[in-house]
């Protein structure tokens, strides 16, 4: 009996112990979950902090650099000019430092996502060279590119990051070369049906590097030696970032050098080849030759809308656009932007993302709704926050492209070149898709009809102007407007619309002649593209 009781007691005790343990475990589990949540919150908070800081720093920096550049364009004496240039240069250095730090922390956190976009290797290289060419020439250095047996040139990859790596290598070469030349060599190392292995080298005739040093160069926060930092500045992050970016692309990066003779920094990546279709980069290359170097005339009939709440930034962007040859209207916020958008057929819209009243994402989404089914106006996001997810958010809101603030002139020109095209690629794609395999010649047929018939309407417009015949002006403008819309000739379409409105007013005003002249030029650009695409 006693034995029995003892057994029961022991059982009881065991079960009490057991309950205690379970309770304890539950408590611990709860604490752990709390700790985990706190940790996650802190990571999120850190990421948010970084995003906010980047925005908060970039916005005033935008003003510093932009206003500095505007100041340099005014009448300054030599001393004032020097001061202003130091302001600009320091601003650029600070910006580069912020960008580098941000990039580096993104890579470290495993948050760097690469994009896969169509690009043209020659354009990539020429564009990067253009950015440093001015400083190279100022130092008396020769700079140029050599493409050895590189075809295909049309590849896929993260264009922006490649440009970043290339510019980094070029600016290093520039920094450490006092005499001689800097040359970019590109060559094909191998090719399969789908891929092409490309090696790009940046060769300089600069200081050169010893083998011991070259091993350390690609590590973070290292430069050749600490005196380098004092003499040449920099964060020592550029090469480390380049290395990681290239490795993320599955490639390799390195350097070979002879002390006193110069260095060759190289990277090689196995790129995917582009499949068939023409994209905006290709179209823009048609005009690259035309626009490079030539003094820009203001494109009077190309309508640009800038949506930006910050007055200083407004001025900076307007100034940059003017320099690039464009005049623009300004809207302070999303609501005003919608009003302007409803009134005027814009060729392109630049959209700030963070604004009071209505932000850029909402405004862009509403613009897309308004124009549903009609010709799509390119919307370019301008944002000061450089973090991942931002770009996706812009694209999801219906925007087409993206530039980060402070806006670099070269970047602005790239975007404009890309979107100021006589014929929208999206429409050509639609028509190609429509023709499909049953009627692959459809696009060709439509283009041929356009090239055959448009000149007749243009001469009708010219005659209508000469004869002051408003009715005839309206009729011809109407006919040409429809055809232009069908092939996605956005610029011609907008010009015809304005001519139609003039015709309908009953009076052929002097502006009509200018518009017809502008239309004749625009049609010239359209024919070139159509002939190239046929």
């Amino acid at each position, binding site marked *: 009996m006693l034995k029995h009781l003892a057994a029961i007691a022991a059982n009881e005790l065991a079960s009490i112990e057991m309950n205690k343990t379970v309770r304890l475990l539950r408590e611990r589990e709860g604490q752990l979950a709390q700790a985990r949540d706190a940790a996650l919150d802190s990571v999120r908070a850190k990421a948010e902090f970084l995003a906010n800081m980047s925005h908060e720093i970039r916005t005033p920096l935008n003003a510093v650099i932009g206003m500095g550049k505007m100041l340099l364009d005014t009448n300054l004496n030599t001393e004032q000019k020097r001061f202003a240039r130091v302001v600009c240069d320091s601003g650029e250095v600070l910006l580069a430092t912020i960008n580098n730090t941000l990039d580096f922390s993104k890579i470290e956190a495993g948050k760097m996502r690469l994009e896969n976009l169509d690009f043209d290797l020659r354009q990539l290289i020429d564009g990067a060279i253009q950015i440093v060419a001015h400083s190279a020439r100022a130092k008396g250095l020769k700079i140029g590119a050599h493409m050895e047996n590189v075809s295909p040139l049309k590849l896929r990859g993260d264009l922006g990051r490649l440009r970043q790596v290339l510019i980094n290598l070029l600016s290093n070469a520039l920094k450490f070369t006092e005499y001689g030349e800097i040359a970019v060599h590109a060559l094909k190392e191998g090719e399969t049906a789908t891929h092409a292995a490309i090696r790009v080298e940046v060769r300089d005739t600069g200081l050169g590097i010893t083998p011991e040093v070259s091993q350390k160069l690609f590590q973070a926060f290292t430069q050749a030696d600490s005196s380098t930092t004092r003499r040449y500045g920099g964060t020592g992050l550029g090469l480390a970032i380049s290395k990681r970016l290239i490795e993320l692309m599955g490639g390799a990066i390195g350097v070979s050098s002879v002390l006193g003779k110069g260095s060759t920094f190289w990277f090689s990546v196995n790129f995917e080849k582009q499949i068939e279709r023409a994209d905006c980069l290709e179209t823009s290359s048609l005009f690259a030759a035309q626009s490079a170097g030539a003094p820009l005339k203001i494109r009077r009939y190309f309508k640009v809308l800038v949506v930006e709440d910050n007055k200083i930034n407004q001025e900076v962007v307007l100034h940059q656009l003017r320099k690039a040859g464009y005049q623009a209207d300004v809207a302070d916020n999303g609501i005003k932007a919608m009003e302007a958008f409803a009134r005027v057929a814009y060729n392109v819209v630049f959209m700030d993302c963070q604004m009071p009243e209505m932000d850029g994402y909402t405004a862009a989404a509403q613009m897309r709704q308004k124009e549903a*089914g*009609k*010709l799509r106006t390119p919307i370019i996001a301008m944002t000061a926050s450089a973090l991942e997810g931002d770009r996706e958010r812009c694209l999801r809101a219906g925007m087409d492209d993206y530039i980060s603030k402070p806006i670099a002139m070269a970047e602005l020109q790239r975007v404009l070149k890309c979107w100021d095209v006589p014929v929208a690629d999206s429409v050509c794609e*639609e*028509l190609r*898709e*429509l*023709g*499909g395999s*049953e*009627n692959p010649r*459809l696009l060709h*047929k*439509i283009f041929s*009809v*356009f090239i055959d*018939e448009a000149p007749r309407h243009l001469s009708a417009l010219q005659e209508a102007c000469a004869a002051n015949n408003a009715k005839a002006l309206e*009729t011809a403008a*109407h*006919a040409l*407007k*429809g*055809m232009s*819309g*069908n*092939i996605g000739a956005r610029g011609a*379409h907008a010009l015809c619309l304005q001519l139609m409105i003039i015709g309908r007013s009953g009076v052929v005003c002097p502006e009509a002649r200018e518009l017809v002249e502008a239309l004749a030029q625009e049609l010239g650009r359209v024919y070139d593209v159509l002939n190239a695409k046929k």
Partner: protein
Amino acid sequence: MANKKAVVCDDDSTMRLIIKQILTQTGFDVVEAGNGQEGLGAIRSQKPNLLMLDIDMPVKDGLSVLEDLKKEGKNDTYIIVLSNHEDENTRKLVATFGVQEIWVKPFNAVELNKKIKDLIKEGKL
């Protein structure tokens, strides 16, 4: 079974090419007309299942084509108007003539293609 018939009435020849492509690949025999006058002739002789009608045309515009069709009485033709105007007035005006669809130019050809296929699937064409 014989193909269904469509009349495409638009003075813009690139537009006619695009629409003709959409309709032939969905199984229509297409007759083209470059203005309202030709359009009416084609409608009378073909008695099409579908009429794609532009509004602004020389010689005879789309609205007067619609007026004439209404005067001629009962008509089984499914009418899609292709207009440059999206204002409420045009919509109302066009609706009084028993028009089923109105598409504002320039429109997305791929979307129109989809719409035609849907209409066929729904048995409306």
